[in-house]
């Protein structure tokens, strides 16, 4: 194979793996938007919490990051419920301005508490599990595990949504709020539940993310993930967790594939250009297909 194609193939494979984690990272955001119509601008801070959880479980107790995921999920449920019942509950149906600011402030609060507790240092750990050697490319196994974990989390959520009682109720709310409230669904309770689950997914994804960033764990690490999650969420239609998951996939592929293409143009920094391309795609999509690449809104 010519070197360009080898590189492209490697990049796409890598993009798919990264994409699954991106997708997982965004599902919570989409769930919350889909149900409560609130954009969680503090998204990244919750990812940070998950990353720290994995870090401490690994370095203090030797618990591998994959097993940290359920722990983070529970912590996320708690945080989500706390945030929901103290603040968000009172802001449902307020103008965007208020909810954007509220979620942002909560994110800042989390960051500052993290800084107070754990200091501003960069931390990280290395989970040595070897590599998988494929023709032309080598994939570290921990990334492959993160990929599998993301896919299974998405599947579990999917099943719960389709079969679980509360999952179905949440789906009903996403489709028609007024309608759902008159059919005996406890809308407020479901808001709380979906908000908590949204946050929990985000925190859990933060734990998986640590497998990709050897020392990127610090209180302010979240910002960039918030922005990426926005783009991915829009790819998937903003209010659909499944859309978001596949949006992550597509994003990972585009980001890595575009690198190879931009690299051919002299004078450009292909890396920055892929980010630029991502935002360009975001704008175009918002204009021509606000319902996302995969079509239908909702669940």
């Amino acid at each position: 194979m010519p070197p360009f194609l080898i590189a492209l193939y490697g990049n796409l494979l890598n993009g798919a793996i990264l994409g699954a984690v991106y997708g997982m990272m965004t599902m919570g955001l989409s769930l919350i938007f889909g149900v409560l119509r609130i954009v969680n601008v503090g998204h990244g801070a919750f990812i940070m919490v998950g990353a720290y959880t994995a870090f401490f479980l690994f370095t203090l107790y030797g618990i591998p990051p994959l097993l940290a995921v359920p722990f983070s999920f529970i912590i996320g449920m708690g945080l989500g419920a706390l945030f929901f019942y103290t603040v968000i509950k009172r802001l449902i149906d307020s103008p965007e301005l208020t909810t954007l600011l509220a979620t942002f402030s909560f994110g800042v609060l989390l960051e500052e508490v993290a800084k107070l507790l754990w200091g501003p240092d960069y931390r990280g750990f290395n989970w040595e599990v070897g590599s998988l050697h494929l023709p032309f490319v080598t994939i570290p196994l921990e990334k492959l595990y993160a990929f599998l974990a993301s896919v299974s989390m998405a599947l579990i959520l999917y099943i719960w949504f389709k079969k679980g009682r509360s999952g179905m109720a949440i789906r009903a709310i996403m489709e028609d709020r007024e309608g759902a409230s008159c059919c005996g669904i406890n809308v407020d309770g479901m808001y709380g539940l979906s908000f908590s689950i949204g946050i929990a997914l985000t925190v859990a994804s933060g734990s998986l993310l640590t497998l990709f960033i050897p020392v990127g764990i610090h209180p302010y690490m979240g910002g960039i993930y918030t922005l990426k999650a926005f783009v991915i969420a829009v790819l998937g239609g903003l209010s659909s967790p499944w859309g978001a998951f596949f949006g992550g996939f597509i994003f990972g592929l585009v980001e890595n594939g575009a690198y190879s293409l931009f690299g051919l143009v002299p004078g450009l920094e292909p890396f920055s250009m892929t980010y630029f391309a991502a935002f360009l795609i975001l704008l175009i999509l918002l204009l021509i297909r606000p319902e996302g690449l995969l079509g239908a809104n909702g669940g």
Partner: protein
Amino acid sequence: MKIRVLLLSILLILPSIATAGEAILIGGPISLSGKYAKEGEQGFIGFKVAEKWVNEVYGGVRIGNRRVPIRYVYYDDESKKENVTSLVERLIKVDGVRFLLAPYSSGLTLAGAPVAEKYGALYMSHGGASDRIFEQGFRYVVQTIGPASSYQRSVVDMVKAIDPSARRVALLFEDSEFSRTVMMGVKGYLKEKGMKIVFERAYPRNVKDLTPVLTEMKARRPEILLGGGHFADGQLLAKQMGDLGVDVKAASILVAPTLPAFAKTLGKEANGFIAPAHWEKGVRFNRENSKGIGLGYFGPSQEWFIREFKKESGGLEPEYHAANAMASILAYVKAIELAGTTDVDRVRDAMDRLHFVPFYGEWKIDPETGKQVGHKMILIQWQKGRKEIVWPEEAQTARPCYPMASCPGR
């Protein structure tokens, strides 16, 4: 209108931390929160330790036959430029500070410079490495940290000394003002030394996957890698080089390998990585070997500094930000003593003549621009899980291992 009156009165009666009087005030805005909180913390503790040494150990600044204590005054700038200008003015006008310590980063240093210049207060850059700050024609801005353009040059020297045949160099660095200045500085130097740049790419800040760019780089078969930017990206670079089997003879990465966390997370894969540093625990600058260099040695021993730093910080290891923070204050003290007065212009003139050695290494500025020219970068390399100083030869705690693959413990 009540609110307005209330606000103004709050502003006017703000608690003033500094008390005037006998002490010489040295201080500045420092980033205790925001994106530079980490570097800010190091610098902050460095300043506190310096204050302690000057007052308690040294006995105060010698002016004529008096000994005057110093007092460190600071405010948190949240790593934001708007805060820098107002805090610098406050420090000068309200607190009466004439000897300023610029905030961390080249950008914030630039933000405060016009205010310092306006009031004629000295403005010491301990975290603004960009050479361009000193091409702007400021009079009161002087530098303690070494200029960014010099960071990677000693790597070239070292490689040339060990392996004159090495020619193929890859540059892979973070797309930021700082790392670009570093890379521009080394590019000319590489040509001078007859090296060939076979690959040159920047990656954006906050990158979390370097696979595409490393794959591309690998295909160009570089022998030497110069790169990096800050903490997270440098670590990622080192980790993914291992993952993808990118093999070079020497890899020098900015910032990340200077941190203990580098080896802690990478384990044996850390061994062999090199980083330029301003200072490192174990650097051998002391009273004996500094004789004959300018005014000779000044300040506490390295051991004292490390001990006090740990005490002050509750157990943190000092990094070079802390060391050059301390050196900044020592330079002020020495310059004031040399001038025999606290008159700013005379102290500034004295700085042109000042040449001394703190534990941080030589201090001497270019009289024309205020840029630090005395300080030399050292190189550290991880060997068997330990951070060794491998260059320059006179400061070595271990010999460099080259090529990387031969490194003990790798």
